[in-house]
């Protein structure tokens, strides 16, 4: 009975899809363009600015990759509060402040390199959790005004941050390195140079080390699962075991003399990244197709995987075209930051399928329904804020170690603005934001950031104008996106009274 109903439903939905696809491809593409108008507008602007500025594509691509590694994590940390219905989290600035406290103590205690980053991490994470908890509790008192409250919360916290760095450090809390202290003996200097201690601490982590860490983590997970399944007398967990085997093989490969050198690098050339990415995509698609061939599942879209294989092939083919090759031949990706960004993308995706993630989505869609179905809405919202704040603090750690200078009183001020603007440029809204939108947004937004001053210089002979313009655009894009969101919501309000 049940299965019959199900097949009926799928037939109907398939028919619907065919009708939509069949009637008017022009209308469908126009709809797509209308839904992505912010993104398309910005893409046009970016491409125009690149053309006008006359900067070589080589430079643009390598710059965007650097900025992507720097800012990607922070932008992705915005997704979970959107899911939970808290809107755009303007208070990620507070997470960034927590990270900066961690960075300061790591430097002050003289730790360097990866251990130094771990010290910063160990300080920043609990602090960010605590602050995120506080902000979440506060937001529960101001439902419906979270965004403006988050913005003001960030300014409010700024005062305490300055109080801490200007008066408590050196005044109450002793500082070990006198070179970081202001002339009077109280307060911290404006900029702290990270060269020689934390600069590139994460960027220089080698691929082989990453495999080792991954293998160790998988070993722990597998052991844990194996023990628990033995206790419950279930079948042996095959999946983690296979992964463990694969990572052990990968780590083993690094010991082969010729191949090993390849893994001893901390930067992956972009061409290799495309090759590896393409290979993984093709293998994944083939795996899915084979699984489906053996055991056909309902609603399986074969074309989707075929298109993915085709796209990977086209992308790989593009690298053989001379101008494209020239553009990307010298570009390379820092292994660990990109690995972390990819990891966060996976986390955002997997989190959705957990129980907590589903609860968050329900709470985000309707607090009334969530409450009725037994979800502790306030608690879920606080957890969302805590996760976001912690992730933002890690994002700031990645940002600062790459930048190499720590502007004590200015490094965090624009974190929220630029991250949110980038996310919105990618086509996200207050209620829906995805990994894809975040990544598109970062690329487009930072393209404009890289080329705007030069474009303005060629157009108006004044580089400052480009600076003003990109600042105006980042504020403007937020205003525009918020306005459009509110506008759309007003079109179908809960309560409509005819005029």
């Amino acid at each position: 009975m049940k299965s019959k109903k199900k097949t009926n439903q799928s037939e109907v939905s398939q028919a619907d899809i065919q009708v939509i696809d069949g009637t008017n491809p022009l209308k469908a593409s126009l709809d797509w363009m209308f839904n992505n108008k912010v993104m398309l507008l910005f893409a046009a602007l970016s491409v125009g600015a690149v053309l006008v500025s006359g900067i070589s594509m080589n430079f643009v691509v390598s710059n965007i990759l650097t900025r992507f590694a720097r800012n990607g994590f922070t932008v992705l940390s915005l997704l979970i509060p959107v899911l939970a219905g808290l809107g755009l989290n303007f208070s990620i600035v507070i997470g960034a402040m927590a990270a900066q406290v961690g960075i300061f103590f790591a430097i002050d205690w003289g730790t360097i390199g990866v251990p130094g980053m771990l010290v910063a991490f160990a300080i920043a994470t609990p602090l960010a959790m605590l602050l995120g908890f506080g902000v979440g509790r506060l937001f529960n008192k101001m439902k419906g005004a979270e965004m403006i409250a988050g913005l003001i919360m960030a300014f409010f916290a700024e005062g305490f941050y300055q109080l801490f760095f200007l008066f408590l450090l050196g005044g109450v809390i002793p500082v070990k390195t006198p070179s970081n202290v202001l002339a009077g003996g109280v307060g911290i200097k404006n900029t702290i140079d990270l060269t020689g201690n934390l600069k590139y601490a994460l960027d220089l982590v080698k691929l082989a080390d990453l495999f080792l860490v991954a293998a160790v983590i998988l070993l722990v997970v597998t052991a844990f699962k194996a023990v628990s399944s033995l206790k419950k007398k279930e079948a042996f967990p095959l999946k983690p075991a296979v992964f463990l085997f694969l990572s052990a093989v990968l780590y083993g490969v690094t010991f082969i003399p010729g191949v090993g050198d390849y893994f001893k690098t901390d930067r992956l050339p972009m061409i290799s990244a495309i090759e590896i990415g393409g290979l993984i995509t093709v293998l994944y698609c083939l795996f899915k197709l084979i699984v489906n061939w053996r055991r056909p599942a309902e609603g399986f879209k074969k074309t989707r995987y075929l298109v993915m294989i085709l796209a990977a092939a086209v992308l790989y083919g593009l690298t053989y075209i001379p101008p494209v090759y020239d553009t990307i031949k010298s570009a390379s990706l820092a292994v660990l930051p990109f690995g972390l960004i990819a990891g966060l993308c996976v986390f955002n995706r997997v989190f959705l399928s957990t129980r907590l993630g589903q609860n968050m989505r329900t709470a985000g869609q309707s607090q009334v329904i969530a409450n009725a179905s037994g979800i502790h809405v306030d608690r879920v919202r606080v957890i969302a804020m805590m996760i976001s704040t912690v992730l933002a603090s890690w994002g700031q750690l990645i940002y600062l170690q790459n930048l190499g200078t720590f502007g004590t009183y200015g490094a965090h001020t624009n974190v929220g603005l630029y991250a949110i603007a980038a996310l919105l440029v990618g086509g996200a809204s207050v209620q829906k934001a995805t990994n894809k939108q975040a990544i598109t947004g970062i690329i487009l937004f930072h393209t404009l950031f890289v080329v705007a001053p030069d474009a303005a210089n060629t157009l108006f002979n004044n580089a400052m104008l480009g600076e003003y313009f990109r600042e105006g655009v980042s504020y403007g894009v937020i205003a525009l996106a918020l306005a459009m969101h509110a506008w759309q919501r007003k079109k179908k309000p809960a309560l409509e009274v005819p005029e």
Partner: protein
Amino acid sequence: MSRMRLFMQRVGWPRVIIGLFFVLLVVASPLLGLKLTDVVSDVLRRWALFGILVLAMVPGVQSGIGLNFGVSLGIVAGLIGATTSIELAYRMGGPARPWTELGIAFLVAIPVALIFGWAYGHLLNRVKGSEMTVSTYVGFSAVAFSKIYWAVLPVKSGTLIFPYGGEGMRNTISLEGTYGGLLSDPDVTANQPGILKWMAFRIGGVSIPIGTILLFLFVCFLVWLFLRSKSGIALSAAGENELFTRSNAIKVDSKRLQGTILSTVLGAVGIIIYGQVYGFLQLYAAPLYMGFACVAAVLIGGATTRRATIVNVIIGTLLFQGILTTSLPVIQRLVPQGSRLSEVVRPIVSNGIILYALSKTKGGNQIEK
């Protein structure tokens, strides 16, 4: 006891605490060796300086758009008027005519503010329920784009033009010799003829900018009159209860538009008066956070996101600006590096007050999901 409690309830804890703190600061300043006359002069001056800008919050709140963080739009309009009048005076040549220049500043600024406010009001009517967030970012982007305007405008006047490179306007424009201090500085008014001499005077060392104070109170009176008129009552009703107002055949959206335009125009007038008292016009990034100071002031005065009165403005400006001006020298005497401490405490106080008000009113959101 119960009367005491009733009083506390009416005035509200935050106001009582801040009021007592203000009194404490004023009392403490002569004990710390500061001249009381200077302190009082400064407080009066800052009060007159910020008054009209804070008053700009009232029509916005009353018409239902909430706290108008986007008043920087009006401020930009005012700055356009103020700079245009200086440039015009330079192009005309001839002797300085400060009063005419002040008049032209208003004449240019008010129409610009009307246009800005009209467009801004239409936008806010389409985003009911999230006006405050949208208005904040509209204000920010207005200030950011105005920077381009300041940088490209081909001005010729020596007071306006950027000293190095000679292109665009400078960051801070001195109003000395034009209309700076016309209504507030006793040294300037001393050279004025007739009754204009009494626009500002000193009594026993306390300088009283009576011209600016009277102007502030006069504008307050005008807004008060407007809010008592039929149109003004309809405007307040639109902010209070949209459904009720609509059922009485009042067009809510046009009332909100009216409130927004009035708020923007008051912002423009307010910044010209600000410049006049301060003696300088600040361009580029300076107006970015001015909206926040205005919001904090009116909230300290007892306003909420749904209700604001003229009394809130007068008391709030006095308390907020009073604390800011008196705390600086007092803290400076008490602690080394006190000036920086005061700079740090300022955002904590003003933003803390805004947060407190937001948490009390459950946000400005009218549409419940």
